[in-house]
């Protein structure tokens, strides 16, 4: 898949993976990378990469809180993204 767990991927590659087919996802993911991603611990970064590998519609369900990922770390980062989305972002 696109992210085999390699944390050395560069920043621009990561940002491109946040370009999705839905505006909601673009806004949430791009803002999260901009403001939060680089301060995250390695474990959470890995969970974020896992999340990016999801299909758009499933990702939307996770980020809008309509479904919860089975992996706890992925579920935590999905909640962080949702909490970080907002009027200032």
């Amino acid at each position, binding site marked *: 898949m696109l992210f085999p767990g390699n944390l050395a991927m560069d920043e621009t590659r990561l940002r491109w993976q946040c*370009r999705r087919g839905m505006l909601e996802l673009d806004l949430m993911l791009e803002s999260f990378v901009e403001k939060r991603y680089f301060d995250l611990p390695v474990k959470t970064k890995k969970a974020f990469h896992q999340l990016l590998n999801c299909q758009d519609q499933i990702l939307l369900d996770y980020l809008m*809180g309509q479904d919860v990922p089975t992996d706890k770390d992925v579920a935590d980062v999905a909640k962080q993204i949702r909490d970080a989305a907002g009027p200032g972002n």
Partner: protein
Amino acid sequence: MSIKNLERRKFDTLVIGAGGGGLRSALQLAEADAHVAVVSKVFPTRSHTVAAQGGMNAALANVLPDNWHWHMYDTIKGSDYLGDQDAIEYMCRSAAHLVYELEHQGVPFSRMDSGKIYQRPFGGQSQNFGGEQAARTCAAADRTGHAILHTLYQQNIRAKTHFFDEYFAIDLIKDKDGFILGALVLEIETGEPLLIEAKTTLLATGGAGQLFRTNTNAHINTGDGLAMALRAGLPLQDMEFFQFHPTGLAGKGMLITEGARGEGGYLVNKDGERFMERYAPHAKDLASRDVVSRAIATEVREGRGCGVNADHVMLKLDHLGRDVLYKRLPGICDLSKTFMHIDPAEEPIPVFPTAHYTMGGIPTNRFGQVVVPVDQGEESIPGLYAVGECACVSVHGANRLGGNSLLDIVVFGRAAGNDIKKYLKTNRHHRLIDEKSVEQALAHLKRWDEPVGDGSESVNELRAELQKTMEDYCSVFRTEEILQQGLDKVLSLEQRMKNVRIQDQSKVFNTARIEAMELENLVDLAVATVKSALERKESRGAHSRIDYPDRDDVSWLKHSLYYKEGHRMDYKPVTLKPLSVDSFPPKPRVY
């Protein structure tokens, strides 16, 4: 990169764009053993088709009586008579077959207890040519686009279509006889160009919602294929027709469905006034989309907007009560809470008209062939096709009906695939590539590799200014004076593009370069849109002129054609003659 070292690949067909239209064409060809390449700037299943939730129209008559002829009438009326009736008949007649075909390919359409495909009623659908409401929209729950896109992608993998994921298309390659011979593309990961030579090239790059500051589109919707067509000397058709929805989340763009006002929500300005009572005393907040959109824009323009920048109005829902809101409008509650941190049960939601769909595009006929006017008729550009939102076939005319865009992409995706198969039978060999055209495309790319321009402008700032200009001067509030000011501003932005220099000159995943080229595309399309809107001196469908409030069939029942060279306009007649039935002559569009 010199032309000598340029990597080259050869295919029968190059498809640019991996949404539903591109993938449906690719599948038709790959199943016929054609050698097909699909180029996509993002991973294919991240194309914008995935966002289409509503469904796909087809007169199956599973819920209520229906037939394709009624669907045809509704589509023509919805288009405000600017749609081409031959293409509309073809689309509506093909619809049922294509729904069944998608179902057999794996799309899980929602069903009734009887086992038949469920169909929901949508706006603009009628029985018996304008009679009772019809139920014509087939859906896979609320994720029809997602289901269609994934099904078509998987079918293409099975059929061995070759995917170039994360490649950005730069320019079409054409020879002196006017044949399109493929395209120069850029591998985003390595930053290296690749020449894809193809006997046929199909543009399926989607719409250009990113022209406007407030829009519903994914960020990838920068109209790349439309701008490539312009640069190849081809016209764009009916670009003045852009569909807006009155209530987008202010500053974000996502749709707040009309259902919110249907349930009793209403709009207020900064003084708390329920202003729709002034604009539409009877229908009030449930007036038609264009009336509500223009009323909101007027309130903001006249200084009665809300917020620090006075740039939106408020949608009030709290009086409906928490229980009703969360039961009937859960999606809106989620959206508002997530993106605005506003609970609609307690506070109103900030809203502003949001750009949604590009009705105009690359002119094609119902076979997907790109066509240009010649003398009294038109002829096709050999080797070039276009389908979906980037094309203008024209089935949507001046206004698209809900449920017709997914239908458009599968019907004309398939039709283009079939016509390309015929073309390939009679054009069996690759034509000699025109190296001069390749050099031009490489020079276009090279402009962003070298420190050209004085660096006084940045991509981000210019894009923001372009989107704000389009919102202020070419959205739902259009007059001669406003559009002329808008044209002056976008032409000035076109000049200022020359001063843009990107700081990052690296090769690997240089997205700054991609974003600069996307902006270049948007600027060309902004000029096309404003110029076409300025010239059309009537109101029709989504194009609403305050100074020309009526539809004028005597002077303006015709398609606009905009050419980049000299910002020139031309016009061509609307096809009023269907394929097999009587024409529907223009009459007042009343619902």
